[in-house]
């Protein structure tokens, strides 16, 4: 239990200490971030060895206490969050001389981590609400770090986020009204298929989809992610949007009555289709490099949503594996993409995609990182994205969903189109954009690291699937 509690409380405590002691913030931050990594690894090993664990916080009885539960999936998500947090902090540290982020970044990112870790662990509807709300606000605060230009998108983000949380809360209230329980495992299988539950689940799903930027509720995401500082965008895209998705998964796989599942599956699948297609098209058309990556997030979330929809319809292990592999590989790949694009944007002074001309000569490392991460986004072997797509394909073939296979093909081609839109430009030798200053190597390597990690992921498919408890 201790590792789990520490994983949440350490960053929380660190954030508070940093507020009190801002001059030591960086040192403290790195101490905590580095310390969390072995903790997360050991926790993962512990769970692997001794199986699923759960606690009731404060030793209250099951009805009152908040339940925390750690299975393979949770520990994996914990580890990925910690890793990316460390990586992004290292990136921020490495560019500190060049373009320092406001000091508020350190406590905020710790708060973000704390709320996210709590979210992965929590199995209580209301506790999840609190985590979600906290996560949303910290995320908005982080977006504002890039200065005045981000205020409007940040405020929009906040309003959407608040509205979404309220929707979720209303749903929680309705469920509590019916059953008087907030604990998810206790509620599992209890819900009847009546209209009250339908309204409650609809409201919660709506809120969560809004927060997870599921198409067509994604409108806030591109603006917010594109205007945030690059490391923040990396955190937002890689981790924050996955939180609501996780809750959505919990809700529909454990709570929802079977009678609702087909309808939800259709809803989610059509949202996924829209996301994959329109997200991809928007990414191909947008003139700005960061919005390209942001729209790609919308599109990529579509795959995970699609997998979720098919979990609801067919409950095949392939789809569960696909969903979480998508989430994990997207987290790593998208972090790499944002860091690389941020680095390119800053060094070349290039906000527009067109200005990335010749980047493969001027900044080969960053461009390589983007391309490698892009390979995973497309699903080229041997990358994590490929693994996920492979699982999804197997599931779709098994359930004979030929239309969705076609949709997947189209979506993959769209993702290839936007990734290679950038890469092809990078090879333009006619008029390369000259860097404003000599490129820094360390941040580029830091951008490359998660991209390489996501390709290494492919080799560890078997341990990953064991952790996800899915047999293909």
């Amino acid at each position, binding site marked *: 239990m201790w590792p789990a509690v520490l994983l949440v409380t350490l960053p929380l405590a660190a954030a508070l200490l940093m507020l009190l002691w801002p001059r030591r913030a960086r040192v403290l931050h790195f101490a905590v971030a580095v310390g969390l990594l072995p903790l997360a690894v050991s926790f993962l090993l512990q769970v692997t060895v001794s199986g699923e664990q759960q606690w009731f916080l404060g030793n209250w009885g099951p009805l009152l206490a908040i339940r925390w539960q750690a299975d393979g999936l949770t520990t994996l998500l914990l580890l990925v969050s910690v890793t990316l947090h460390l990586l992004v902090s290292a990136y921020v540290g490495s560019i500190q001389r060049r373009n320092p982020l406001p000091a508020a970044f350190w406590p905020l990112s710790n708060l973000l981590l704390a709320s996210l870790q709590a979210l992965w662990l929590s199995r209580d509807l209301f506790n999840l609400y609190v985590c979600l709300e906290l996560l949303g606000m910290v995320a908005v605060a982080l977006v504002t770090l890039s200065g005045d230009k981000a205020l409007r998108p940040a405020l929009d983000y906040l309003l959407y986020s608040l509205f979404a949380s309220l929707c979720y809360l209303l749903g929680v209230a309705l469920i509590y009204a019916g059953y008087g329980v907030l604990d998810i495992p206790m509620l599992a299988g209890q819900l009847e298929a009546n209209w009250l539950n339908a309204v409650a689940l609809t409201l919660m799903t709506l809120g969560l989809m809004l927060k997870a930027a599921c198409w067509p509720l994604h409108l806030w995401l591109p603006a917010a992610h594109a205007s945030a500082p690059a490391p923040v965008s990396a955190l937002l895209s890689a981790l924050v949007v996955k939180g609501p998705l996780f809750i959505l998964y919990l809700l529909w796989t454990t709570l929802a009555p079977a009678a609702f599942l087909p309808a939800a599956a259709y809803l989610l699948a059509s949202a996924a289709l829209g996301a994959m297609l329109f997200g991809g098209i928007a990414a191909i058309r947008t003139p700005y490099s960061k919005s390209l990556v942001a729209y790609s997030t919308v599109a990529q979330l579509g795959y995970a949503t699609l997998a979720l929809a098919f979990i609801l319809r067919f409950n095949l292990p392939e789809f569960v594996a696909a969903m979480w592999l998508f989430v994990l590989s997207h987290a790593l790949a998208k972090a790499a993409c944002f860091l690389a694009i941020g680095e390119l944007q800053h060094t070349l002074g290039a906000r527009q995609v067109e200005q990335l001309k010749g980047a493969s000569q001027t900044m080969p490392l960053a461009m390589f990182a983007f391309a490698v991460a892009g390979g995973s986004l497309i699903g080229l072997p041997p990358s994590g994205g490929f693994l996920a797509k492979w699982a999804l394909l197997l599931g779709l073939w098994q359930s004979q969903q030929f239309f969705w296979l076609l949709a997947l093909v189209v979506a993959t081609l769209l993702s290839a189109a936007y990734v*290679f839109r950038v890469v092809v430009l990078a090879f333009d030798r006619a008029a390369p954009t000259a860097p404003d200053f000599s490129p820094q190597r360390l941040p580029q390597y830091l951008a490359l690291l998660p991209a390489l990690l996501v390709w290494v992921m492919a080799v560890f498919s078997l341990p990953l699937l064991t952790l996800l408890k899915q047999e293909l």
Partner: protein
Amino acid sequence: MQAWSLEFLPLLIVLSSLLPGLLIFTLKEQQVALRTSLNLLGVVLKLVLVYVMWQGVKAGDNYEFRLAFLPGADLILHADALSLLFVVLSSVLWLATTIYAIGYLENSPLRSRFFGYFSLCVSATVGLALAGNLVSFLLFYELLTLATFPLVVHRGTPQSLAAGRRYLAYTLSGGLLLMLGVSLLHLLAGSPDFTPGGYVLPLLATEGALLKVAFALLIAGLGVKAALFPLHGWLPQAMVAPAPVSALLHAVAVVKAGAFGIVRVVYDVFGVEVVSSLDLAWPLLFLAAFTILFGSWCALAQQDIKKRLAYSTISQVSYITLGVALLGPLAAVGALVHLVHQGVMKITLFFCAGNYAETLGIHKIRELNGVGRRMPLTSVAFTLGALGMIGIPPAAGFISKWYLGLGAAEVAQPWLILVFVLSGLLNACYFLPVVYRIWFGVQYSAWPAPQRFSQRLETHWMLLVPPVFTMLLILLMGLFASTELSPLSWSELIVEREFSFDD
């Protein structure tokens, strides 16, 4: 043979070009000597290793390297006779192309990047040849796409970028279709090792329709790289790449990867029996026959040397597909031997085209008038390559055409001989006028951009040695077809092993 070498030799063969390639990426532009020696070291090492493996495979050793990859589908590098055919082809031609590329790119920028990807490309090709199951094949197939793309756009001009986009659009779609097919087949039959005679026979009774779908997907995916008719659009455009790249692309790496994949799918995944009982060969046969004629027909109208060669590739590679689709042992021999012969002949032609362009600035066919006197060795090599393409003895192309023709007659499809004859005619129509201009044409204006690379030789020696070397290969392979070393004998061995399972 020790156990470790049985296990690690295939891996070492892939790494022998991969590691130098990765090292080269880190080199600075000025470190010419180090880069060149790394390149050559990789080439020589690979050739030695391939030789060792060749001897081993002939003696019946079983080389296999396994790495856990997907559930139920390991990453396998396995050496059998068929893969060795392709490995030997690509390693030998890599040697020639490396030397050629060093000479060709002398004093041009971004060489580290070029040679890095060049090595990666060969590693992917060799990996693809050694891939022991469909999933490994898919992996290397996609890696090949990625490794060749930077080479195609290396020049960085608007045309090459457009070509690169098109190349990606085609090959990535193809890769995706292949992935769909592989995943479907994985679901139906798992992903066991390639087996002579195929492994889907038990499913024939129950899953016929899905097997057909899988076959169509696989062939469509592979057909993109093999430039089968409606999927060939990328190839003519991709010839804007530097000459060594075109040479490698057309002769070994990309189009051959597709053709080789088709061979694998038909013989080692589905097996002749399943393919014929599901009537899968017919569409492939017609498509290949049409592509042969179509490619040749398009080549006629091209005025650019490399473009004409590109369309000729479309036509010639389909010979391989056609031979495979005929499903007979003799046709299979023809197809396999053409895999090698076409590679050597086409690489010679591209080397020569590169020499003309680099030395005299000649890009158009009409500028070739009388070039035979200025560059005799290159022109002899070009002439022999062209004669081989037409299928005139003693060039190697005749041997493969002969076996393909015999194969067609053997399975009672003599109308296909007409296809070969017509294609040979068209080949003659677009190659002989070029040869005529080279030797008999009268030079009517100064060379567009002449350069003196050497005092005594017609061009830089590094540009001259590779085409002469491959030209000698063409002659030797055509004349001494029956010797033990020849591709023909090796193809017969492969076919013997493949078809002995059907009896």
